[in-house]
C-alpha cells in the first residue's frame, strides 16, 4: 500500500510536465504558437533520440557526471572539514568565515578566466570549479548545524560522562547530520549549475558544452534537449544521494512522514 501511494505521488509529479508538453505540442500543431523558438516536445524528443542513438548523448552525460562526481567529492569533503573546524575553533571562525562568506557571493563565471590562468584548460579547472560550487552550501550547512546544536544536549552528554569521541558520535553527529545532508543536496544541485560554467573551459563534451553549442549555432531543440537531460541527470543524482544517505537519518521522526 505505501508503495502504491508512493507510485501515485510520482505520477502526480509527472502530471504537470506532461500537461505542459501536450499543451505546447497542440499549440504548435494548430499554428497558435511558433515552434521555432521553443520547439514542440516531438521535435525535442527526436533530437534527444538522435543524440542517444548516435551515442553522443551518453558521451555528454558521462563527461558531465564524472566532472560533477569528482567535483562533488572534493567540494563536499572540503566543506565538511572547513565547516567543522570553523564551527568548533572560535579563532578560525573570526579569521576565516568572513572571507569565505564574501567568496560565496562570487558567481561561477567570474572564476573561469582565473581558473584557466591557474590550472590550464584540461579537467583540473573544471573539477575544481565544480568543487567551489559544492563547497559553500556544505560549509554553511555544517558550520551552521554545529553552531546551533542545543547546548542542553551537550550538557546531558557531559552529565553522562561521555568522552569527547562519544559526545561527537552520540550527540553532535545525529544533531548535525540532517542539516549536513541538506547542505550536500544543495551542493550537488550547485555542482550541476557550476558544470555549465566549467564546460566553457575548452570542453568538447558534456551537457554544458551541448547547451552552449546549441546557443552558438541557433539550435533551440538542442538547447531544450540539453536542459531536459540536465534535469533528468540532476534528479537521478539527487535521488541517488537521498537513497545513499537515508539510512543515516532513519532515527528521525519527522512531520513529513505523517503528512
Amino acid at each position, binding site marked *: 500500500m505505501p508503495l502504491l501511494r508512493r507510485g501515485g505521488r510520482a505520477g502526480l509529479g509527472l502530471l504537470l510536465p506532461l500537461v505542459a508538453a501536450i499543451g505546447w505540442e497542440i499549440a504548435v500543431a494548430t499554428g497558435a*504558437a511558433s515552434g521555432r523558438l521553443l520547439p514542440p516536445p516531438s521535435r525535442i524528443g527526436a533530437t534527444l533520440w538522435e543524440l542517444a542513438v548516435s551515442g553522443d548523448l551518453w558521451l555528454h552525460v558521462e563527461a558531465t557526471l564524472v566532472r560533477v562526481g569528482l567535483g562533488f567529492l572534493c567540494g563536499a569533503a572540503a566543506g565538511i572539514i572547513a565547516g567543522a573546524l570553523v564551527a568548533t575553533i572560535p579563532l578560525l571562525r573570526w579569521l576565516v568565515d568572513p572571507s569565505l562568506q564574501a567568496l560565496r557571493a562570487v558567481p561561477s563565471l567570474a572564476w573561469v578566466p582565473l581558473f*584557466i590562468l591557474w590550472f590550464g584548460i584540461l579537467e583540473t579547472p573544471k573539477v575544481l570549479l565544480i568543487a567551489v560550487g559544492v563547497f559553500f552550501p556544505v560549509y554553511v550547512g555544517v558550520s551552521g548545524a554545529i553552531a546551533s546544536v542545543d547546548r542542553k544536549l551537550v550538557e546531558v552528554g557531559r552529565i553522562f560522562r561521555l568522552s569527547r569521541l562519544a559526545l561527537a558520535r552520540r550527540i553532535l553527529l545525529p544533531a548535525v547530520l540532517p542539516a549536513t545532508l541538506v547542505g550536500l543536496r544543495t551542493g550537488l544541485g550547485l555542482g550541476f549549475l557550476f558544470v555549465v560554467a566549467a564546460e566553457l573551459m575548452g570542453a568538447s563534451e558534456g551537457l554544458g558544452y551541448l547547451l552552449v553549442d546549441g546557443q552558438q549555432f541557433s*539550435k533551440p531543440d538542442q538547447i531544450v534537449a540539453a536542459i531536459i537531460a540536465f534535469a533528468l541527470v540532476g534528479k537521478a543524482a539527487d535521488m541517488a544521494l537521498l537513497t545513499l544517505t537515508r539510512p543515516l537519518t532513519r532515527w528521525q521522526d519527522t512531520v513529513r512522514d505523517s*503528512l
Partner: protein
Amino acid sequence: MTDRMPRALALPPSDGPAPNRRLLLSAGLGLAAAAMLRPARAAGSIRIGYQKYGSLVLLKGRGSLETALQPLGVTVAWSEFPSGPPLLEALNAGAIDFGSAGEAPPIFAQAASPELRYVATEPPAPRGEAILVPKDSPVRSVADLRGKTIALNKGSNVHFLLVRALAQAGVPYDGVKLAFLAPADANAAFVRGSVDAWAIWDPYLAAAERATGARVLADGQGLAPNRQFYLSRRGFTDSSPEIVSAVLKAIGEVDAWAEGHADAVAAELAPAVGIPAPVLGVALGRLSYGVAPLDAAAVADQQKVADAFHGLGLLPRPIRVADAVWTQPERRAENRAETR
C-alpha cells in the same frame, strides 16, 4: 489522527471570487505568452542590435541615425549584444529588426530560420583575423601546427580561417587539437601557455599582439575575406524597406567619416571595448570601410563559409546564401529596367 491531517491542511472549496482570480490569472498568462511569442515593435520604430566594436557603435554614439530618421517619424531603440550568435537569435525571434555580425553567425542563423536577410556588407578585412603563436614558439608555419592545441571560438569567422589555413598547409583537420574557448578565456589560456596557438579576430588580435608580443602565423589574406554583414529579417525588410535604406545610408556616412578620423574613432571606442586607444588604432587600421549591397563575389565568399561548416558537420543541412540576400527597392527597379 494522521489520516485526518491532510484533510485538515487542505483548503475548503470556495464559491467566492476564486473563479474570477483564475480567469484573471489565465488571461494574464495568455497575454504574457502572446507577448513572449510576438515581441512588440512600435509602428514607427527600428530596434537595432549592436556589438561593442564596429560602425553601429559609432552611429549610436553620434546620434546621426535618429536625426536622419526623424523626418520619417521613426524612433530608434538600441540593444547591446556580447557577440553575433545571440544578436542573430534575437533577430530571428523578432526581438530586434537590424544588426551586424561577422561571416559565421549568419550562416547558422539562416539554417535556423528563413527570416534572415543580408542587407549589406562592408569590404573584406582579411588582416583583421589571424592565427597567433607565442613570440618564442617553435611553430614557424601552419604546417608546424600538426598535433598542437589551438584555441578558437567554435563556429566563428576564425574557425573558417583555421579550416582554410590547415587545408592549404596540407594538415588534416583532425590532425590538430581544438580548444573551444571564448576570446577572454582563450586569452587566459594563451597567456598561460595551455594552448600552442590562438585563432582570433580584432580588436582582441591587436590587444594580444601588443600585450604578449605574439607572432602572426597566418592571417586571412588569401584564405578568408573576413567580412562584416548588416542583417535584418524578412518581415522588416518587406514592411519597412525605406527605413532599412535610410539606416544603410547613415552607416555609409559614419563609415566615410571614420575612415578619415582613425584617432577619433579609437578614442571613442576605447572605453566601451576596454582596449587602449593606441591598440584599437592598430585594429582599426586593418578595417575596411564602406557599405555596399552584396555582390556576386560577396555571396560566393559567404557560400564557401557555409559549405565549409556543412562539411565539418556544424550545419545540419546545406544552405543557399543567395536565398537570404535582400535587394534594395531602387536596385530592384534598376535590375528590372536592365532586363527589359
